[in-house]
């Protein structure tokens, strides 16, 4: 959607699309039309694939090091400087291992699952605006596209769990589906709040809206971010909601039977999905490549990736600190807590947008007011829900009773009670 104008010089790496635009305009001068399409598709696809592969590899190191810091250890530090070559070592090890096939399983589905799992993880990345003009496909239903593509992952994970012919895997597969059915609803409703304000479902449109309004949607829709973050964490199976691969309960859930590089693919998909969560949150709630004017000095794609990694860090932090919830608690949380809050959020958001449009108020005035209102509403609702609807933990004792002497009944006296 960038307005046509003189092309920036190719060496302007604040926006990597400059070089590509140059190349394409040169190609369109000398070659046929379809060549431009093909070349742009190849360049974009390769770039995204390389980016995803590189992050998957890098995140092995990032995740292990960060979690190690949280857990008062050092993490991998033997292979290469600061253990930087550890991902290479991990991958080499995984590739050398034999890929086992369960004898009573369903071989075709079993082998397809890890490959198919990589598809959605890769496809999601196609619509993100990495920089001002750095969008591979600028779909005008981008938000819906993301939800649709990520929901397909569930079926793939189910395929993996079911075809393994393992009871742990089956339990994991059932849990994946139960989780999706519950968490898809509040997730979509939360993102709807964002779309309401931005008035578009295109991701670059939403970023442009935040850029024009000089405000992050996170400030306007804080509740939506909280709900989205929790639901997305549940959908990509990370602690505290990793019940589909709950290690202490069902060994590894749907990928119990996978070994070698097939397991490695699932592992990579998990890392890439965590990054995708960060990318979605950064785009929709934190202004994507835009950072209050700083993007004039720092390349937009760097800002974007920086934001993604900050949110990814938040995920690692959660993983390193919180225990896991039980499945019925997770379901109850989705239906009884997140869904009502998401509905309230949409109602309030729609009301605000209506007021804004009907009375034709200036954005500079209403958006800060809405931010304050929505932020206080979010805090109020969450705290109120915790106080009145949740189990009253704070009223129960959280320290043991201390007894100094054992109460011994004298030989003559009658004994009673359980003790």
């Amino acid at each position, binding site marked *: 959607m960038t307005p046509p104008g003189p092309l920036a010089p190719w060496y302007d790496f604040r926006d990597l699309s400059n070089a590509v635009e140059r190349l394409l305009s040169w190609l369109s001068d000398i070659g046929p039309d379809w060549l431009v399409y093909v070349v742009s598709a190849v360049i974009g696809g390769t770039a995204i694939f390389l980016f995803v592969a590189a992050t998957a590899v890098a995140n092995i190191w990032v995740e292990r090091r960060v979690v190690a810091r949280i857990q008062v250890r050092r993490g991998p530090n033997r292979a290469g400087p600061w253990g930087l070559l550890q991902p290479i070592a991990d991958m080499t090890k995984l590739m050398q291992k034999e890929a086992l096939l369960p004898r009573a399983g369903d071989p075709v589905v079993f082998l397809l699952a890890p490959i198919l799992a990589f598809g959605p993880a890769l496809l999601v990345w196609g619509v993100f605006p990495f920089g001002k003009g750095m969008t591979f496909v600028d779909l005008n239903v981008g938000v819906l596209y993301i939800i649709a593509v990520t929901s397909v992952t569930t079926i793939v994970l189910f395929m993996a769990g079911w075809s393994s012919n393992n009871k742990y895997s089956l339990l994991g597969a059932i849990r994946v589906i139960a989780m999706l059915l519950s968490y898809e609803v509040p997730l979509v409703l939360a993102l709807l709040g964002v779309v309401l304000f931005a008035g578009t479902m295109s991701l670059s449109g939403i970023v442009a809206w935040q850029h024009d309004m000089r405000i992050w949607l996170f400030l306007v829709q804080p509740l939506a971010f909280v709900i989205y973050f929790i639901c997305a964490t549940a959908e990509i199976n990370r602690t505290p909601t990793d019940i589909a691969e709950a290690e202490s309960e069902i060994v590894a859930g749907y990928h119990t039977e996978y070994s070698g590089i097939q397991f490695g693919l699932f592992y990579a998909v998990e890392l890439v999905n965590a990054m995708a969560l960060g990318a979605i949150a950064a785009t929709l709630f934190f202004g994507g490549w835009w950072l209050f004017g700083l993007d004039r000095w720092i390349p937009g794609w760097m800002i974007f990736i920086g934001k993604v990694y900050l949110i990814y860090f938040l995920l690692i932090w959660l993983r390193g600190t919180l225990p896991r919830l039980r499945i019925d608690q997770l379901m109850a949380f989705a239906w009884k807590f997140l869904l009502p809050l998401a509905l309230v959020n949409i109602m309030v958001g729609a009301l605000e947008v209506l007021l804004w449009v009907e009375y034709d108020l200036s954005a500079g005035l209403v958006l800060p007011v809405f931010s304050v209102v929505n932020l206080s509403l979010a805090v109020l609702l969450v705290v109120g829900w915790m106080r009145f609807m949740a189990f009253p933990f704070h009223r129960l004792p959280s320290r043991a009773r201390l007894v100094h002497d054992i*109460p*011994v*009944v004298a*030989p003559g006296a*009658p*004994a009673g009670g359980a*003790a």
Partner: protein
Amino acid sequence: MTKLIPGSETAARIRAALPDAELEEAADWVVVDAPHLVAVATFLRDDPALDCRYPTAITAVDRLDHFELVYYLSSLQRNHMLILKTRALDHEAPEAPSVVPVWYGAHPQEREIYDLMGIRFSGHPFLKRIFLWEGFAGHPLRKDFLALPGGQKPGLAHFPKE
């Protein structure tokens, strides 16, 4: 300090309640005959003065010609302990009544004794081997398990340089 109830006191109380139980008293323990074991155990548990609701430990000893079952019973409320013994006389196919109906805690301990000593507990709800697999030949804690030639019992008869 946990008081160990002497055998004479326990025996007197049991005799008062169950006159037909055959008792044999020692300084620290009472030996009851196997047929009356469950009745005596129930009495020890329910008697308000003895109140042995906590079965501390149950084990067995191979006395070469018979098996001796040892029950360490205690009352947490009164903080005392007493020792009850009984005998499984047939060394080849020993059998004793199960006290699982009296104390649920006897469940794994009797299974353990059955597994390692081979004493069958009649009335045990789930008498299967607990550590060794079904079909393991013999019961390892018996003194004649893999018996040495010449009837020598396992263990050292004397220290090496004696």
